């Protein structure tokens, strides 16, 4: 909308020509000038300039809708509002599943199950609406080359054995998952820009980017001056493009993120630069005394990125076999945790926990501490004699 030419804003031809002599050709240029400057370049009086401003604003401004109209539109097509994750307790708390039209982020330490979750969601999106899917194709932007087609078929076959009973159906499903391998920030951004056309031509119903953090952290070293601003710029631009696409077509977008260690003096270091010998199990989220540096492991990419995503799910280790999925930020769901394991059919929830009284505690989603493998192991060793019946991991 910003780059709309003034011609199309219904300004007169001679006015447009006069303005182009001052290099003012788009609505953006016009609206960024102050009133006095506008009077100078258009040669019009104060009142006329205000009328022109209103005309140009009309060309750029968004359309009004009342909240009621939005609700009615939603209720006409209820299945289009969420993509169920087939983890039933999670779906119930999330009011349906992964919301369509907004960004959902998945953060976890390495090896917790992010890619498994993404692969499972790809399968789900291709299922017909009657089975809870979106009956569409999937775009999977892979920056880590972690996607495995064999695992995809294994999950599909084991999770929905009755549906994927023939090879034909499996091939049909795999044909509708479009995989793109992007290895630099620039190519990821270019790919995101080209999404609009792809969605229309291929009838895409789900976009997955696995992972945003790896490609960003490879290229931007935040200790160097100026890199932090550039990184935020890239992330913000990517986020707003993705939001536009998500809302325009009303499809869910899933992004994955990595973890970082945030020291209490605020400086964050990438967790993978810290050798496993480091005791990462130093306190969880402490703002302790000023002298002692306590570290906590949180989601990477900083505060601004935490603002840009609408929903944040954290996968973390709980003990030797079970892991936890935490809803850290969601506009519709309270803070909650669920236990799961990774099996042949993908992620499987352990429904031992009592969900009827969900605690309203959570903390800042940007600083929510995440348990990594070492802390989980440490805790597991500490409480070998103290296991509650609900937590017994399945063999």
């Amino acid at each position, binding site marked *: 909308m*910003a780059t709309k030419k003034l011609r199309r804003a219904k300004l007169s031809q001679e006015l447009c020509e006069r303005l182009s002599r001052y290099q003012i050709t788009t609505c953006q240029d016009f609206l960024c000038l102050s009133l006095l400057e506008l009077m100078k370049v258009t*040669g019009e009086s104060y009142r006329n300039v205000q009328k022109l401003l209103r005309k140009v604003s009309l060309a*750029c401004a968004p359309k009004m809708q009342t909240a009621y109209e939005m609700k009615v539109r939603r209720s006409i097509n209820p299945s289009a509002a969420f993509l169920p994750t087939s983890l039933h307790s999670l779906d119930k708390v999330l009011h349906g599943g992964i919301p369509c039209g907004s960004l959902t982020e998945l953060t976890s330490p390495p090896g917790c199950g992010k890619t498994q979750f993404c692969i499972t969601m790809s399968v789900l999106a291709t299922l017909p609406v009657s089975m809870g899917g979106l009956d569409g194709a999937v775009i999977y932007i892979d920056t880590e080359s972690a996607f495995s087609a064999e695992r995809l078929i294994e999950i599909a076959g084991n999770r929905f054995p009755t549906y994927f009973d023939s090879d034909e159906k499996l091939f049909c499903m795999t044909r509708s998952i479009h995989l793109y391998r992007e290895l630099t920030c620039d190519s990821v951004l270019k790919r995101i820009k080209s999404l609009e056309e792809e969605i229309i031509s291929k009838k895409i119903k789900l976009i997955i980017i696995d992972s945003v953090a790896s490609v960003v952290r490879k290229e931007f070293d935040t200790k160097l001056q100026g890199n932090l601003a550039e990184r935020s710029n890239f992330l913000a631009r990517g986020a707003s493009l993705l939001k536009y696409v998500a809302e325009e077509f009303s499809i869910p977008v899933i992004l994955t993120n990595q973890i970082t260690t945030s020291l209490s003096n605020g400086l964050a270091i990438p967790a993978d630069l810290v050798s496993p010998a480091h005791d990462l199990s130093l306190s969880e989220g402490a703002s302790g005394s000023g002298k002692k540096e306590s570290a906590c492991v949180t989601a990477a990419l900083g*505060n601004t990125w935490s603002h840009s995503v609408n929903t944040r799910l954290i996968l973390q280790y709980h003990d030797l076999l079970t892991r936890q999925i935490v809803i850290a930020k969601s506009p519709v769901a309270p803070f909650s945790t669920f236990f799961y394991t990774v099996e042949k059919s993908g992620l499987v929830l352990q429904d031992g926990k009592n969900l009827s009284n969900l605690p309203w505690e959570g903390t800042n989603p940007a600083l929510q501490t995440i348990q990594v493998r070492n802390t989980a192991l440490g805790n597991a060793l500490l409480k070998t004699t103290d296991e509650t019946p609900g937590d017994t991991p399945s063999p």
Partner: protein
Amino acid sequence: MQRDVGSLPLSPALRARLLAAGFQTAQELLETGPCGLSKEIGISREEALEALQVVRQECAGDAAKTAGGSGSTRKCTALELLEEEQTQGFIITFCSALDNILGGGVQLTKITEICGAPGVGKTQLCMQLAVDVQIPECFGGVAGEAVFIDTEGSFMVDRAADIATACVRHCQLIAEAHQEEDHLQALETFSLESILSHIYYFRCRDYIELLAQVYLLPDFLSEHSKVRLVVIDGIAFPFRHDFEDLSLRTRLLNGLAQQLIIIANDHKSAVVLTNQMTTRFGQNQSMLVPALGESWGHAATVRLIFHWDNTQRLATLYKSPSQKESTIPYNITPQGFRDVQPPPVTQNAEGTEMNPRKRPRREEEK
């Protein structure tokens, strides 16, 4: 009448010509008349007539201002202002602690800014206010409508519907308890459908759309004169990326703030903005500060900062012309923005035994 020609709102070319011809005051122009003017300067008679009409309007406006008459002059005594302020309504937030520190709720005709970390509840409060502004007067509300300008895409209709349903339920309970005629009458028009249809939603994708929408807002508010709340959810988001020229950004933001102040005053509505937090790196520490820079801090009249203390959400009144700085806890429940429920405490004498879980309700002294 003695107004200088250079200050009249004519087009610059015409102004330059008048000054070159030697005209100095507006009176001279009016005395010359359109024909004389057109001959002296070399413009057509229609143009001269138009210019004179503008001059006449300006002078009439000036005269009215010096006489101290019309209502658009914004001059009044402090007593009149006091009476106005006392009768003015507040938009309640359903969290009594927050309403208390704000002095009754979100004030009309003022700009309130809410800053906070991600996920702390800014959008929830905005949705709550968009519903609360519509509470009928007999229940203590201002019976207005709401404009919701969304730049981040975080407005969820289902959540707004939940909040609205809880609000209607709350009013129904009050009506049942008091059984007054006007309560029941008001409840007939106060329903989920009516609440949602009076939230006017605009989705602005970048800063140009936001600027355009704010330029058009006065016209919209004149058409919908019952609007008492304008929410801009995410004023920081469109301005935080793609801006190489920071001075342009400051200028645009200042212009935006001024327009919003004019809108708030002229249409007697509250303007609520939400801002993000950004990390500022100090010597050897970093802290979270509101985004958009120091100069933006002057734009809002009232500033609230929402933050976390471990698992408790807190709201701090950071800047207010009339209330004291204080911090209170709050909660987000399925019904919306609410108080923290203190756990039931057994009565004890004179507070000799401090229950460590009970949060002190006294305001913190800074």
